[in-house]
């Protein structure tokens, strides 16, 4: 997991900041100071200086930070992009931006104007900022060892075209996205070509498209995040060795919405995640060697839609509670393994009292196969005939895949 490396980097950053402080000047910016605006303070600053900005509204147009400095707001000074400019552009290593409120960035799909954009830099820390009505929120373009922490991002766009991503990372290594809250953007958090990074304790909700969007990013981990009520949930595609721990996926509703979409994912590991009230909690397509353990699926339409293109997916010790359909699939080929899960619809018995059911559980019902093929059949939901079909299918499986079964279902909740 590279935990040691991260800790080491973290200390490195902290140390570097303190080192600079020790040998550097502090420049004040404010209405009653010599520097009335931040731009002139940056011109005067040298590497390692600290710029403290007092409260007020600053129209700096595009503020470019090209020195290794600490830029810190005191009393939440406001930087206004006047709906024209990118507000802060970071083009140096070892920069810290702390405690600003950034509002009204410009909108341009050509340049991806952002609240704060980091260009080809390392060891940049962006924390405790509030971003409102920005096109892209915080944008890291080719960054290494950057930290984005405790920022609050809120966009008010309605259309997908008119809005950018909250935290957008394009090409990066060892990034840490911690404790941010993002709402109203196109994608809450967007990762493309980002390696060895951590997404931890973020809240991403009410975004237009995805709460989290992952593409071509390997060896990343996300922990303790909340994804709620996003247009299409969370999407993880074309990535390897992703780890997900204790995330919450709530209320992602709609035909194309998934708690999480796993497409062309290999060697993933998911543990302790909660999926509640999603249309389909997990949708898997072309996923290989995914290990899912101790997750909770509660009150979803479909707990799991696993396409026949998935290979070697292992599900064990998960709880399936109150889902309309437990598992849906599109073919009869099953190369995945279900074991020791708890299914609340299981009707078997346990004669030898080892808390494992004696007969296998088949999570794919006949009716779910029908609905998968003919969605309007939903109108027969909970009718007598579908119950009858399910019962006969349970006794003599013909349409549902023979091998999709949990041979050792738990009698009680798995944990």
């Amino acid at each position, binding site marked *: 997991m590279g935990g040691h490396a991260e800790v080491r980097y973290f200390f490195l950053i902290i140390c570097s900041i303190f080192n600079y402080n020790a040998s550097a000047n502090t420049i004040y910016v404010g209405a009653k100071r010599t520097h009335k605006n931040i731009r002139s303070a940056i011109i005067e600053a040298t590497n390692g200086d600290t710029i403290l900005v007092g409260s007020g509204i600053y129209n700096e147009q595009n503020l470019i930070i090209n020195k290794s400095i600490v830029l810190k707001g005191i009393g939440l000074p406001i930087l206004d992009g006047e709906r024209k400019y990118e507000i802060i552009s970071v083009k140096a290593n070892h920069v810290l931006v702390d405690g600003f409120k950034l509002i009204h960035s410009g909108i341009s799909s050509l340049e991806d104007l952002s609240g704060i954009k980091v260009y080809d830099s390392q060891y940049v820390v962006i924390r405790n900022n509030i971003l409102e009505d920005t096109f892209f929120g915080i944008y890291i373009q080719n960054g290494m060892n950057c930290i984005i922490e405790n920022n609050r991002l809120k966009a008010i766009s309605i259309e997908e075209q008119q809005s950018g991503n909250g935290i957008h990372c394009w090409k990066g290594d060892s990034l840490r996205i911690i404790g941010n809250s993002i709402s109203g953007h196109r994608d809450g958090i967007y990762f493309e070509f980002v390696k060895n990074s951590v997404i931890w304790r973020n809240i991403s909700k009410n975004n237009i498209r995805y709460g989290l969007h992952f593409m071509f990013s390997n060896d990343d981990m996300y922990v303790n995040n909340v994804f709620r009520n996003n247009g299409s949930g969370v999407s993880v595609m074309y990535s390897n060795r992703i780890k997900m721990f204790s995330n919450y996926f709530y209320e992602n*509703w*709609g*035909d*194309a919405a998934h708690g999480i979409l796993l497409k062309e994912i290999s060697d993933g590991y998911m543990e302790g995640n909660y999926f509640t*009230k*999603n*249309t389909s909690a997990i949708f898997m397509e072309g996923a290989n060697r995914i290990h899912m353990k101790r997750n909770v699926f509660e*009150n*979803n*339409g479909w707990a799991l839609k696993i396409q026949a293109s998935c290979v070697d997916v292992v599900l064990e010790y998960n709880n399936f509670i*109150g889902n*309309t359909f437990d598992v849906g699939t599109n073919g009869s080929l099953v190369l995945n393994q279900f074991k020791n899960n708890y299914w609340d619809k299981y009707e078997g018995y346990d004669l030898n009292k080892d808390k494992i059911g004696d007969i296998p559980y088949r999570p794919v019902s006949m009716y779910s196969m*029908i609905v998968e*093929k*003919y*969605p*309007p*059949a*939903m*109108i*027969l*939901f*909970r*009718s*007598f*005939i*579908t*119950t*009858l079909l399910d019962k006969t299918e349970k006794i003599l499986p013909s349409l549902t895949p023979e091998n999709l079964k949990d041979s050792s279902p738990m009698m009680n909740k798995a944990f």
Partner: protein
Amino acid sequence: MNKIIKYVITDILRNKIVVIYTGFLLVASFSVFSLEDNNSKGLLSLLNIILIVVPLVSIIFSTIYMYNSVEFIELLVSQPLKRRTIWLSLFMGLACSLSIAFFIGVGIPVLIYQANWIGFTMILTGIILSIIFAAIAFLATVKMRDKAKGIGAAIMLWLYFSLLFDGLVLFLLFQFADYPLEKPMIALSTLNPIDLSRILILLQLDVSAMMGYTGAVFKDFFGTSTGLMFSFFVLLSWILLPVWYSTRKFNSKDL
């Protein structure tokens, strides 16, 4: 008219079968609510009882009752009473007593455990279903002179509405899978009071929200107040049409 209704109601409420039916519903509802750990799950189990048991008992009991009161009807016809009045008051009496039985059996437990909009819809649709199937039973009895045939027809009708119709819908779905069928499905559901009631209750339970596009289409229609009014109007016409038709038949029937 009132006298006949009163007589029919007291006669039926003293009937052993109705007492047993009420008792069964009462026990079933209470046990469902006390067995399930959350009440909305209990409601779902109760849904099956309402959609299967209530129509069955309603239609069979009404049919048998009508055949058993042939002599009573003949006696009434010999009195200076309009045939229409006799027939309608018999229907009212039967419908009232079945509704009372349902209300005691299911309504009271639901009101105790789930006194909200969902429970209310459930009770209402249950009562309407009881009345609808009594009306359909009247249609069967007026058409068939023979008791065995009549009861057979009643059972077939129940089977049709609770099972065969849905099978037919499924068949149509498979046949016309290439077409957008969401809206025709709504139209089709009005042809079966059991389906319509089921959809109404399920929408109240809000499972539909989980069902993606199709569910959304249904919700869009049945969830709005116009859709709700429409479906109750359809259910009402499921009572009125058979009753109207059977009354007309009874008026000119050679007893």
